[in-house]
């Protein structure tokens, strides 16, 4: 995170070279034998999913961490058996399932992947294996009956989901994005959200299981299907055929029934004529998406600037307490620095936002600024300490000899000099903080990096959003880097 300033000059170029090399290396994976022939040759159907999606889709066997359970595990096994191969689960972050499929990390996606026009344009889908509804869950004590009652309110969902598209298209609703399925319902219970919209299997397992929450309405519907790379036409046909067979002979119904998922909706789906598998066309970035990026960059700047202000003030208080405070105060300040420096900022954000919620219900933005600020304060305190050490004791003596009080000597004479020594390091830390601010997306703040992942899913490509995101970060950090270098040149000789 922090590097010696002398090394910095070459770092940017090195990073660009590395990125170019990686980009060149990526397509090589896709050249491995794929399609149906590849699956047959290996004797394995590799299917991608995310165990973090949890029950009832795919989740770790609580008694055997190496095994996965879930209705999709059973569907995968049934399909593989019909293809004459073995099914093998590949763990992958849910948001990046599509790019990983394209990279060739696995042969199919089978993990609650909703059929949307955007996804249709990028991957090929088999016939659906499950018809879900979008469940709006609210607190018992509130008379919400539909999305129309939630105008101006905060509604939670998962990024990249159909529910997200649905909410974005609903005027007046503030959408709050989560990475896991547990946290939105947690925040709904605590009043941070007015409602949560997610697929009904998730709502049943994670939302409605909590006392105090109830189903307000089904606000949409959709289907899960298996995704295959568009150029793997033989595999698409084979998997689609195998799925058709599990529908025809009742095996799919048996699996869904076992998991408590069979209902009228599924009966309708099974009876309907299977739609022809669709081969994608393509998607292009829009001006509106660029606007979202700039807005997200604004969030990054505001969060970083406020957090840095907090860190600079807090670090000053810590370093003064450590140097001039009474013994207990010194010990407390030292403990603070060691704890906040010695544990991951990601963990601190989780604890602050979710862990402390029963005692201290912070909103996400406040928690983000506070979390980053408190963490960086520990680092700033160390910079000030180095600055204070660099001021000769003769300076304090000269001030005291003139009749300055101790606090005047500190404020007027010692601190301004210490600050000059610390300033280049502080500017450097601000750059680091700017990039670390991407971590606050875990507590639902949509900043630049989060916006990049959202747009990447929308656009069905990571390259353009990724480069745009990188360009914006550079545009923000480069002036800071220049400023830091100028401060180093100008201020250090004066203090020496």
């Amino acid at each position, binding site marked *: 995170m922090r590097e010696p300033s002398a090394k910095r000059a070459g770092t940017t170029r090195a990073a660009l070279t590395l990125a170019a090399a990686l980009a060149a290396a990526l397509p090589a994976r896709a050249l491995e034998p794929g399609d149906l022939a590849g699956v047959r040759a290996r004797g394995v159907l590799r299917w991608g999913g995310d165990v973090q999606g949890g029950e009832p889709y795919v989740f770790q066997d609580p008694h055997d961490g190496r095994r996965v359970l879930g209705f999709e595990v059973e569907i995968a096994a049934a399909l593989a058996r019909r293809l004459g191969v073995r099914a093998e689960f590949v763990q992958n972050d849910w948001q990046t399932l599509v790019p990983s499929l394209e990279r060739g990390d696995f042969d199919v996606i089978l993990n609650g992947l909703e059929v949307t026009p955007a996804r249709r344009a990028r991957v090929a889908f088999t016939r659906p294996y499950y018809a879900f509804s979008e469940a709006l869950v609210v607190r018992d004590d509130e008379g919400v009956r539909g999305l129309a009652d939630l105008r101006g309110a905060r509604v939670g969902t998962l990024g990249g989901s159909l529910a997200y598209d649905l909410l974005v298209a609903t005027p007046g609703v503030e959408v709050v994005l989560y990475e896991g399925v547990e946290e939105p319902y947690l925040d709904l219970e605590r009043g941070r959200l007015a409602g949560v919209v997610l697929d009904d299997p998730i709502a049943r397992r994670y939302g409605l299981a909590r006392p105090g929450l109830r189903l307000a309405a089904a606000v949409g519907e959709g289907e899960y299907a298996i995704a295959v790379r568009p150029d793997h036409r033989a595999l698409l046909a084979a998997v689609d055929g195998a799925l058709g067979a599990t529908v025809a002979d009742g095996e799919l119904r048996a699996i869904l029934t076992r998991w408590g998922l069979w209902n009228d909706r599924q009966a309708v789906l099974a009876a309907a004529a299977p739609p022809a598998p669709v081969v994608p066309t393509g998607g292009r970035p829009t001006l509106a998406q660029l606007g979202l990026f700039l807005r997200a960059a604004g969030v990054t700047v505001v969060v970083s600037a406020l957090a840095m202000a907090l860190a600079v003030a807090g670090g000053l208080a810590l370093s003064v307490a450590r140097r001039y405070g009474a013994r207990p105060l010194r010990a407390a300040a030292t403990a603070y620095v060691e704890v906040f420096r010695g544990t991951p900022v990601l963990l601190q954000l989780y604890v602050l936002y979710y862990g402390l919620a029963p005692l201290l219900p912070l909103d996400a933005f406040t928690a983000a600024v506070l979390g980053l600020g408190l963490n960086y304060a520990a680092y700033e305190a160390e910079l000030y300490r180095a600055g204070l050490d660099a001021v000769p004791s003769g300076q304090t*003596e000269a001030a*005291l*000899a003139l009749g300055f009080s101790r606090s005047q000597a500190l404020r007027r004479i010692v601190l301004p000099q210490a600050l000059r020594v610390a300033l280049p390091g502080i500017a450097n830390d601000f750059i680091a903080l700017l990039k670390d601010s991407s971590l606050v997306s875990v507590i639902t703040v949509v900043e630049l990096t989060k916006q990049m992942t959202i747009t990447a899913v929308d656009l069905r490509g990571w390259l353009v959003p990724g480069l745009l995101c990188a360009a914006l970060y550079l545009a923000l950090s480069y002036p800071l880097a220049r400023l830091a270098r100028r401060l180093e040149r100008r201020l250090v000789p004066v203090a020496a």
Partner: protein
Amino acid sequence: MTAVLAARGLATRLGGVWVLRDIDLAVERGEVVAVLGPSGGGKSTLLRAINYLTPFSAGEVEVAGHRLRPGMSERRDAALLRAVRRRVGMVFQHFHLFPHLSALDNVSAAPRRVLGLGAEAARARAHALLERVGLGGRAGAFPHALSGGQQQRVAIARALAMEPEVLLLDEPTSALDPRLVGEVLAVISDLAGGGQTMVVVTHELGFARRVAGRAVVLAGGRIVEEGAPARVLGAPQAAETRAFLGLR
């Protein structure tokens, strides 16, 4: 004549060694006292004890009715210490100018912050003092842009800005190039001529003879001899003084 500064039975023990013992020293208004003696004799410690920058172990110091005693703390006795220090100016061997402030701000800082003068009044006072030490044209310069001699003259102006009852100068020319010594000694001589009460620790014997009204020889932490400079330097009585002067 009244003593503006009196040390009685002053003793300082540092790291198990008595660096000062039984010091009795009274300085009259307008008097210039030169403190002479071998290195390690306790000269600097004596000056630092007078405004309690180095705490002393026994005895007392009295300045304008305020008495400093052993065992005081910077925190607890802050008011008393400030009352004494604002009346006792200090000039250090190594200047200790504030590097982040211009010459003018170095001089005007204490009148503003300690005496509560308005910004304009403090600046006017600082300008006059810089003029007096021959640096009227360098008011805006920062310490790093000044020569050693100029820095020490700013430091003298800084101490004078508090209008101290007594000015303590701790080897004010020892850290300077020989060619810069003269300009600083000239300023100090000028102050003496103007009636400023001073205690000067110095190795410049000619200067002491010319400017000081009294010479005090400190050796082994004690005052071994004192008297008119011409007498002390011309016909030393104490063996320590004779050794210090290179006589047998």
